[in-house]
């Protein structure tokens, strides 16, 4: 980062007042405001125009800079969020450093909110402009921060989200490293029998009446569908593994991530043995050896294990420009809740496995929703279990059309028209739905599920040979570790926290790191894929730049006066500050700094200054209020 210190100059400020059509001019008397501006110290030029952001307005600014030798520009108009970059680039084009520009908001902050008080609005507009002009006179020219970048990406997690992201980026010609902790990519999909989408009918609006009729029958589900999920995930894995731009590290775990956007470096550990076992290479030999080790474990010193690990693990060290976190989630494993025993009372996941193994035999099935979710300790809704339950009920119906299936639920979460349709289809297929009360949960005992039906106001008992518990997806332990390693924020449930739920759903607040799939929140495979693709495009938008350019609005610590009390370090939400014990100072990495200014406020010795918001500038602004 670089501050250019100008030689002591005489301030020549130009002020531009925007009418914003009638948005501002309808309330504020722009003419007299312009005249007023000319009386302010340092102002040598002031003008008003209909739309300062129009081409004519921009041209006017540029000409005024040249003709009047302006060295400060103040525009009084609307929100800086939308138009500041435009005006700054106009300044730049006219040869003025863009950081010598100051914007005053007299629309949202004045004409709009004070529309009923003309006199007050006019007075306030003068105040605001005076403050802006006062600050402008202390502005300093600055240079934007540039840094190089590595056009490669790291994808953590080889589930559907991670695979989608990796293939998408590789498809764009980017180098991708995919780190998967299991020996096989594919994630949860490896354990699934089928996907809900296979049972979802096209929306009714698109169907003719006969089609609709036929779609209501169960004949539609043929046995071919059973392998479609396998086919789907295998296809994704194949795409990934055969792409020369993608390097897949299976049985691997991230050990550390350092650096910043454009220049991350990660170290991962790969367990060759485990990988080998799964890939059936030296299967027996290695297994023997490992058993050998275990057997001798009690006697043999730690060093042996370490040397064994040394022989059998591999360290991976790579540089990347962006990171996509797609670590997914794991299903909640109940601990005897609702009589869980793994045989007659199982989870949906285990049900899917029994489909796959062809060991499913039951005729009377009761499914209980919200097991381990939406309760104290895990308050969120896992979002996908209702859909899964209905889908699996349909699978059972398809396998055994005579089977009795009851689903006990608290609220059905079947969002979207397809899901909604599937629910109706399920009802049509004879699957029975009962609502139950959170306070009086069903009791599973000896093949009988008893519960209170609040709709009927009666206690019911259903006997069954299989009870299936719908458990939520929960953040895995590994993603918790990863959050610590990468210093990423998680929410109170332990899922990764995006920068903004609506505006930046796939970004972390730290630049260059993105999130997708169930790592963020339980997602369906379709959602995970969509998010994976989205994250890929977010990363690509960074990686296809030649250099990274960052706003010069960052904080800087004066190493002469810093005494390393670490107040700034503790308060920095972006981990941009590090300590330098040798020099006994704290330092700010300008690439990581977002310019929030917390450190500048916390520093007791004013050693931290936030460029563009220096004390001198702020106090000039404050003192101009009067």
């Amino acid at each position: 980062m670089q501050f250019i210190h100008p030689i002591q100059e005489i301030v020549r400020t130009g002020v531009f007042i925007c009418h914003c059509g009638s948005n501002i001019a309808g309330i504020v008397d722009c003419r007299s405001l312009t005249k007023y501006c000319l009386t302010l110290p340092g102002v040598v030029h002031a003008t008003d125009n209909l739309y300062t952001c129009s081409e004519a307005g921009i041209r006017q600014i540029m000409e005024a800079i040249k003709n009047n030798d302006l060295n400060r520009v103040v525009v009084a108009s609307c929100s800086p969020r939308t138009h500041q970059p435009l005006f700054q680039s106009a300044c730049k084009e006219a040869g003025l450093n863009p950081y010598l520009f100051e914007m005053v908001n007299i629309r949202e902050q004045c004409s709009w909110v004070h529309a009923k008080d003309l006199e007050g609005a006019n007075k306030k507009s003068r105040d605001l402009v005076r403050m802006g002009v006062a600050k402008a006179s202390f502005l300093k020219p600055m240079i934007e921060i540039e840094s190089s970048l590595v056009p490669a990406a790291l994808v953590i997690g080889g589930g559907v989200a991670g695979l989608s992201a990796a293939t998408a980026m590789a498809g764009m010609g980017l180098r991708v490293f995919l780190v998967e902790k299991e020996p096989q990519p594919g994630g949860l999909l490896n354990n699934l029998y089928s996907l809900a989408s296979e049972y979802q009918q096209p929306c009714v609006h698109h169907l003719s009446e006969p089609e609709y009729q036929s779609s209501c029958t169960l004949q539609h589900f043929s046995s071919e569908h059973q392998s479609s999920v396998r086919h789907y995930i295998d296809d994704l894995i194949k795409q990934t593994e055969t792409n020369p731009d993608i390097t897949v590290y299976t049985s691997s775990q991230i050990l550390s991530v350092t650096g910043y956007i454009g220049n991350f470096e990660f170290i991962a550990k790969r367990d060759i043995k485990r990988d080998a076992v799964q890939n059936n290479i030296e299967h027996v030999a290695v297994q023997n050896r490992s058993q050998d080790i275990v057997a001798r474990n009690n006697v043999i010193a730690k060093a042996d294990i370490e040397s064994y690990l040394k022989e059998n693990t591999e360290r991976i060290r790579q540089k990347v420009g962006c990171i996509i976190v797609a670590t997914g989630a794991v299903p909640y494993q109940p601990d005897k809740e609702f009589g869980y025993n793994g045989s007659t009372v199982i989870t949906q996941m285990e049900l899917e496995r029994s489909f796959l193994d062809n060991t499913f035999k039951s005729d009377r099935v009761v499914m209980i929703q919200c097991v381990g979710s939406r309760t104290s300790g895990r308050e969120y809704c896992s979002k996908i279990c209702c859909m899964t339950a209905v889908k699996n009920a349909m699978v059972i119906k398809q396998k055994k059309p005579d089977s009795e299936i009851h689903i006990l639920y608290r609220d059905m979460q079947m969002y979207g028209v397809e899901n909604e349709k599937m629910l109706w289809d399920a009802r049509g297929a004879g699957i029975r739905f009962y609502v139950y009360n959170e306070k009086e949960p069903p009791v599973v005992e000896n093949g009988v599920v008893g519960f209170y039906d609040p709709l009927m106001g009666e206690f019911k008992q259903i006997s069954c040979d299989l009870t299936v518990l719908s458990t939520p997806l929960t953040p895995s332990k590994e993603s918790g570790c990863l959050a610590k390693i990468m210093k990423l924020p998680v929410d109170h449930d332990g899922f990764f926290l995006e920068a903004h739920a609506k505006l930046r759903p796939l970004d972390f607040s730290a630049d260059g790191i993105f999130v997708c799939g169930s790592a963020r929140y339980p997602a369906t495979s379709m959602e995970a894929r969509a998010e994976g693709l989205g994250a890929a495009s977010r990363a690509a938008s960074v990686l296809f730049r030649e250099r990274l350019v960052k706003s010069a609005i960052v904080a800087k610590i004066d190493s002469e006066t810093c005494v390393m009390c670490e107040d700034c370090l503790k308060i920095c939400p972006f981990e941009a500050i590090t300590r330098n014990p040798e020099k006994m100072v704290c330092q700010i990495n300008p690439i990581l700094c977002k310019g929030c200014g917390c450190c500048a406020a916390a520093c007791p010795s004013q050693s931290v200054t936030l460029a563009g918001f220096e004390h001198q500038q702020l106090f000039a602004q404050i003192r101009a209020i009067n």
Partner: protein
Amino acid sequence: MIEHVKTIAKQLLESGQITGFLSLKKEHGQIGPHLFQSVDQLDYLCLGDTTGTENRESSTEERYSGTVESKPEIETNRASGKQENQSGAGKSRYPLNKILVRISRNYPSDCFGILVRGCDERGLKRLFALNQLDPDKVVRVGIACPQDLADECECLEPWPDKWVNDTEKTDGSEKEKIDGTEKSDKAPHEPVRQKLPCESVARLESLEARDRFDWWMEHFARCIKCYGCRDICPMCFCKECSLQDDNLVRTGEIPPEYPVFHLARAVHMAERCIDCGLCSEACPAAIPLRTLYKKAGDIMSNESGVRPGYSDLTPSDIGNLPQTGEY
């Protein structure tokens, strides 16, 4: 007590464990801070007593009225080693921590001993947490303040974790020698901790807001901006002071602009002030700064449950506490 302190200091110096022992020295009838670097200097070591059990005010009066002769007074003092033994730490206090920070900045690899009271030790703990001192380079020798001094200071804990105890023999185990002192189960006297909020704070809070404002204004109007409060404060270790920033506090005028000057300092003190009260003692305008900072400390402990220097937190604990380090 003083003999015990001297013995410990001697042992520490002779063993080469410390380069110097920072304590108070009585010389030319004046008490001042001193870094004892050789054993033979230790004769001058003192714990801060000016005139034994007499307080300073009365002795000043006597001196001015010419009833007490100066020379015998000094001799009485020197002779009254026994009395000092009983009265313990005296009223003359100096920001020894602050001096230690300065010394160790210049000699970062050396280890120093330091005489600490309760307030000094609170200061040390904060300074450790704020990276200004290395705990491994400081050997503390604790002394407890007498009850009357503690009452006057409204000190919540007028003794350090470990202090030299009269009844204890100093020729104990090796460990005991090194640590200087052993933690005693029994407090030397009743702490004032129970009396929260402090009387001075409570008295002010009972006033009407406007009266309180006038009360403070009357005090702040006397400020001559000498920066004495900052210069004596053991927690003020910044190389450059915000209060000397022309943007924040206008230069060239006294009294300094209110509320910027005094409240800015109070805010800076929020997480730092260890309630030693040296600021109030040093203030030539007799502004009750301690009361102001006590209140800041009260608010902090209400908000975060942490009172700087009081809890037995290690530096890393403090770093991990979500509520600290914010102000």
